[in-house]
């Protein structure tokens, strides 16, 4: 048996993940119509092959795990690569930034969403100056907004700032 630890747990979760993805894909693939025609293979053929491949690879990874852990040609441990341990706060701040952007972009507009994203990500990377970061993020967002809408003719949502941007003739 391989040593039990976070490493084995991660490998188990990822192997099962590949397997589960394959099974889910198979469930969809088997409900697709045949519609084969001359080729005798229709739109459901490749999905079945790909689902089968994922199931087989999930099983392969599980088999490696059961016989001493995943085979590795290179080190895949952060400590071995000279990196520090998982920093949960950093990970969560970056996630928070991306989620905030998703939530804000439609109604609050591109500029405010970019400001929120920028400030959260900077915070995640260890910045201790949220006001400066928010200011920089808003300016960057505004610059990008103007460049895209005025110069490239790509529309981006103005959101809550619409009266302001519109009022300034922008």
């Amino acid at each position, binding site marked *: 048996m391989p040593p039990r630890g976070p490493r084995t747990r991660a490998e188990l979760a990822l192997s099962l993940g590949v397997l589960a993805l394959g099974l889910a894909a198979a469930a969809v693939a088997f409900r697709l*119509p045949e519609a084969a025609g001359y080729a005798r293979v229709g739109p459901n053929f490749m999905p079945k092959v790909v689902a089968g491949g994922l199931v087989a690879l999930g099983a392969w990874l599980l088999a490696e795990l059961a016989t001493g852990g995943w085979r590795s040609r290179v080190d895949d441990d952060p400590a071995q690569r000279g990196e*520090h341990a998982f920093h949960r706060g950093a990970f969560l701040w970056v996630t928070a930034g991306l989620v905030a952007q998703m939530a804000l972009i*439609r109604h609050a507009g591109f500029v405010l969403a970019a400001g929120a994203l920028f400030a959260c990500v900077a915070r995640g990377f260890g910045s201790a100056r949220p006001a400066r970061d928010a200011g920089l993020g808003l300016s960057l967002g505004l610059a990008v907004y103007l460049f895209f809408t005025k110069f490239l003719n790509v529309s981006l949502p103005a959101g809550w700032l619409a009266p302001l941007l519109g009022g300034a003739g922008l």
Partner: protein
Amino acid sequence: METLAALATGFGVALQPANLLWGVVGVTLGTAIGVLPGVGPALTVAMLLPLTAKLDPTGALILFAGIYYGAMYGGSTTTILLNTPGESASIATALEGNRMAKRGRAGPALATAAIGSFVAGTIAVVLLTLVAPVVVEFALKFGPAEYFALMVFAFVTVAAVLGASMARGLAMLFLGLLLGLVGIDDQTGQMRFAFGVPELMDGIDVVVLAVGLFAVGEALYVAAYQSRMGETLEKMSGSLWMSREDWKRSWPAWLRATAIGFPFGTIPAGGAEIPTFLSYAAEKRLTKRPEEFGHGAIEGVAGPEAANNAASTGVLVPLLTLGIPTSATAAILLAAFQNYGLQPGPLLFQSQAALVWGLIASMYVGNVLLLVLNLPLIGLWVKVLAIPRPLLYAGILVFATLGAYSLHQSWVDLLTLYVFGLAGFAMRRWGFPVAPAVIGLILGPLAESQFRRAMAISQGDPAVFLERPIAATLLALTVLLVLAPWVWKVVRERRALR
């Protein structure tokens, strides 16, 4: 002769003022973005892809060729001054380049990287010019069965050689293939894996996948595992000029590296990663000053950098002549062609000769531009590197999400981007290679349509893949490649038993 005439036409296209301008913009933009730590050529091209939707195809492709070269060049500056390789192909450069910078020889290290890239890039483009028409001639005889076999071969070699293990490489390939199936089936109009979500109906855009894996995944990873470490930016010290001895030691390394890099680039072996290491190993073995290796030997920078450039140009041979991308960056370049309804391959050399040869000629021009523009601008790139890390990554994510959002103006694409970011984080953490997923996404649908076309021609008889010699050989090689490690293991165990 015919090739020369075609190339002359190509220069006529590449040297038109507008196209020349796109070349300059491309190399400059590519270098400026490629120099950012953690941003490799694949991400650079992916981020800029949505912004060029309104250019004419020739100008856009010349722009992308410039970005491709520029990003690679910018990456070497980062590697030498910061010791954070932006991509795996730069790891070998980091070994010696950063040590040279630490010893106050950053100038010659950057110079040998730049001039070596120019020499290797130029020789490689000459080779590309000579080889491409030959491959095209050969490929014109290919039917759907041969193309399908070739794609399977490319899939499996790329998945087998990259990443921490073959199982993980293949798992990522199949993930990419699955993502490639999402959306409307071209041949029957059948909706697959879209679950009624409108954003998924036209399929998953390669930009979203690449930016999710390379930008969001990378940002999550660096935040979680590297953001609390100090890092030192080496000063731009030492004259940019190389001494007579530096030249003497660099020349042979550049040429050897080109000889290693170009052929490796043309075969589906995952691009520039392997040849850079081979070149490093070759220089280490051949040097007259082995004691300097590990402490900043100039051959150790000259070789891998030249190999990187030669291989990256070699990658364009299968991309342009067969439509087969063999690296993540090449897959995104293929998506750039597809945006204009162009399918690289032998037919493109006939139907769009001016475009293809203009693109090839622009690579000659791009190499010169890089050398002329970048050595004087090094001071500027160093300033880019001095941007504090929190602001840098925040800025990268603003631009990365912008590209994905501008596709459909929908937050669903941002959600997809984040999901791919989580996947990219997990892949980076647990040794799953990214390139097979990107290649699977872009090449999978093409492989499927070639497969079904071949089957339609043979009236549903799968023997067609075994009756045609080229297809059968390629498929046999593929099987051999997958089984070789096991066979090898069994043979060794048998021997050990005796």
